[in-house]
């Protein structure tokens, strides 16, 4: 992972939400997952801005689903983590764990 690829906190949350929603990771699902687990009021714009940025970096990739009437005839865009994204997330979480050592014990990410 290059020096410029260090993940921000919200990027970590978005990547973890993609992992948690397993195969159903589209914008609103990711937003809801973050809101449900962290209690943080998150806007859909913030989620998409982060996803677009990470897609440009090659950390995530996306595919279009089918359009549905409840979405006004618009399709869902499903996101998946690339190996580079997984690696970046692992390194980033391990860095937090190392910094927290001795103060807040966090299990190692493998």
């Amino acid at each position, binding site marked *: 992972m290059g020096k410029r690829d260090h993940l921000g906190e919200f990027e970590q949350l978005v990547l973890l939400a993609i992992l948690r929603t397993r195969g159903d990771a*589209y*914008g*609103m699902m990711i*937003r*809801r997952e973050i809101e449900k687990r962290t209690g943080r009021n998150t*806007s*859909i*714009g*913030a989620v*998409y*801005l982060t*996803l*677009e940025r990470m*897609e440009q970096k090659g950390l995530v990739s*996306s595919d*279009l689903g089918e*359009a*549905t009437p*409840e*979405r*006004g*005839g*618009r*399709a*869902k*865009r499903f996101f998946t983590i690339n190996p580079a994204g997984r690696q970046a997330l692992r390194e980033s979480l391990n860095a937090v764990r190392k910094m927290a050592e001795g103060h807040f014990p966090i299990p190692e990410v493998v």
Partner: protein
Amino acid sequence: MNLKRREMVARLILKLLVWRANFLGLAAQFVGKLLDCRMAFLDRKTRKLNELGKSADSWRKRWDSIATQFKTLEHEAEPRKQLVLAARAALIKEQKQIQIAASRLKIGIYWGSGILTYTAESLKESYFSTKKSGDSLCTILSRIDSATFYWDLLLWFLVPGVHSEEMLGDLNEEYLLRASDQGEASAKAWYQHQAVTTIMQYLWKRVERIATIATLIDLVERWLKK
């Protein structure tokens, strides 16, 4: 809900989109003409280069012949010597002229093409983005009686993200869910809050980009002043 007013707004926006499309069409025609001129210019240059290549070949043959004669010049009579030296001097002069002509031909061949190709590519991108915008607007207009119509329009206008269409779909989906769970008023308030924060974030991103460009320009200016 005032449908007439909504239709008026929709018509106005459609007109703006058509103007934009027309402008893009005109710009594309203009760039097309420039590219035609450029091609004609390059054709002329290619022809001149071919002629120059022939001149250079002929020069090389004459130079080889003179060079052989120049080696045995000591044994030649004076008038013959003068002749060979004069021919050699004339060939050196001709060589310089060929070099100057070649360097003149090189100027402007790549530079102009690069700018035109970049402009054509930008226009192509603008065309696709306008087409995407138009499709997205059609989806919004097809639901002109929706409670979130104006907010959808605002998001469509101010949030030009790569996945803005999918984002609008996500918002609409959750709006419907919330409207059935918590009621229309609560869902509408949630939608408005989401729309405002999203617009603010995208606008802030634009401001940041402009600030970055301004800082870069300032740095280059300072560097040039040094």
